[in-house]
């Protein structure tokens, strides 16, 4: 008997991603991986998975998934316009984000639209039973590797589940939405800030930049005031780290993200602080940002603080009442049980 989620209708750009294919950049292999590491980690934690388990990254609009297993626990994290659960023998119900849900055989999860952000995640308890490529399940579609057949999901794909049924456990939800921070995107100058004039650096750090339509897993092209070079846009190609901001001859910044190439020949004025990379992964065309330079040590501190908050958010998960069911943990916790538990029949 199959245990799988079957794609009955494809979304726009849904790929399997874990935290990235690390260790092979020297061979020209991009890391790929989740655009929003925070959201994937939370989705996995809600399902009881380790952080590096591959989940479905939903771009703009998600798929419809048919449950072909006795049961499967899923968690949706991200600003989804509530997903819908359809069953052959029951009216459709809404499926909230930021919590886990127990799905049964024959039900169809219509993931729907991502609203107010470019990405959301669906994790499944136990993960998907697919072969890793170079140590990772992250999809790198340009080379056709990783994930499911190296590509975005299409109708008819059968995603095998590692678990035949969900472990018995109460559902959990996020206590409060994770605070990604607001205000400017923090960046660290370099590696080639010396290729720009003082004026160019001031323009970069003091202007609004708008996300253009050319925004995908490889990077985001921004529109705004042009940044003046002093030594030209071309360098002898060198390594490109996550969040590197390259400025080609036209003077407009491009932030390079998960599917970026490993080396490149444009001067890079600055690099996004790793704590703010998940925010980049959530931006939509038309949104406006500013860049604020910080020192390396400060960026490292921001990242460590974010990790602490992420671990606290996971420790503070609340029990979530299953629809139409009874949440024992919540009752015990609230100290409500003395003798008789009465649950009205719907």
């Amino acid at each position, binding site marked *: 008997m199959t245990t799988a989620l079957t794609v009955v209708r494809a979304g726009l750009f849904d790929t399997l991603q874990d935290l990235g294919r690390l260790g092979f950049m020297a061979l*020209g292999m991009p890391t790929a991986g989740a655009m929003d590491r925070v959201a994937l980690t939370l989705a996995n934690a809600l399902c009881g998975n380790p952080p590096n388990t591959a989940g479905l990254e939903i771009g703009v609009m998600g798929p419809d998934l048919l449950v072909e297993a006795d049961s499967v626990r899923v968690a949706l994290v991200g600003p989804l316009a509530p997903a819908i659960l359809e069953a052959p023998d029951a009216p459709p119900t809404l499926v909230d984000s930021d919590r886990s849900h127990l799905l049964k055989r024959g039900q169809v999860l219509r993931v729907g639209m991502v609203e107010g952000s470019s990405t959301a995640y669906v994790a499944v308890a136990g993960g998907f039973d697919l072969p890793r490529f170079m140590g990772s399940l992250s999809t790198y579609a340009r080379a056709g590797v990783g994930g499911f057949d190296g590509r975005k999901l299409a109708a008819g794909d059968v995603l095998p589940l590692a678990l035949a049924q969900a472990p018995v456990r109460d559902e959990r939800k996020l206590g409060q939405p994770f605070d990604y921070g607001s205000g400017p995107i923090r960046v660290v100058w370099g590696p080639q800030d010396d290729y720009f004039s003082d004026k160019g650096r001031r323009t970069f750090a003091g202007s609004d930049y708008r996300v253009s339509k050319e925004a995908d897993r490889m990077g985001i092209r921004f529109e705004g005031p042009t940044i003046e070079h002093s030594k030209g846009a071309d360098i002898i190609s060198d390594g490109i780290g996550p969040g590197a901001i390259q400025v080609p001859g036209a003077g407009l910044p491009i932030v390079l993200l998960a599917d970026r190439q490993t080396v490149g020949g444009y001067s890079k004025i600055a690099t996004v602080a790793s704590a703010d990379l998940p925010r980049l992964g959530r931006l939509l065309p038309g949104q406006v940002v500013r860049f604020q330079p910080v020192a390396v040590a400060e960026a490292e501190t921001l990242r460590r603080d974010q990790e602490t908050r992420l671990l606290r958010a996971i420790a503070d998960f609340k029990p979530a009442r299953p629809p139409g069911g009874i949440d024992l943990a919540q009752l015990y916790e609230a100290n409500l049980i003395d003798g008789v538990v009465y649950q009205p029949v719907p």
Partner: protein
Amino acid sequence: MSVRYLSCGDTAFSVEFGNEISPTVNGRVMALHAAIGQAKIAGVVETVPSIRALMVCYDPLTTSRAKLEPEIAGLIARGLPTELASRRVAIPCCYDDPEFAPDLGEVAERTKKKPEAVIAAHLASAFKVYVLGFMPGLAYIAGLEPSLYLPRRPQPRVRVPRSSVAIAMDMTTIYPFESPGGWHLIGRTPLWMFDQRREQPVFLAPGDQVAFQRVDRKGFDRIAREVEAGRFDWATLVRKT
């Protein structure tokens, strides 16, 4: 030779050995790449060699730039090996089929050579892999015989077939996938530079010494069939030095 440490955010920094394309500078990059690999420094995730710099990627949750930079400076101060063990790799290449070498005639004309002399110069070049990038498995292989230096084509091709062997500037390359490309196509290898069925999907590595070996169309087809079927013995192409 002065070393510069350039920030790449809070998860990487670049160790730059110079601002030139030279075997000496690249040798230092490769030596530090090897030295860090051997030293197994806690918190270092990976290192990415390029022509004149090594990018060191680290996990800011377990280490920091302030801790790593002196450690790496220490490795450099203790002296990097000048002679690295490297592989000698033979790449079979067919120059004969006009479909494989659409630019051979033009290269010959522009370098004022007979096509056979272009082929001979490519075969005689002492090539070394400087860096992989742009696409998984795409190697920038320097050491082209100087009489063959040409700028890239002004109008890149939209489609360059997989395994095309091409030259531009002082380098040669082999396209791992069908892709756009602006280099001059002078031959084709039956090998796949990226084959995800293999345990090591990328064949070439930075530092490899590369020599092309001429095969005719029959020889090309024979190897191509074995590569396609996953039966080719790649070890026959590699010697350690």
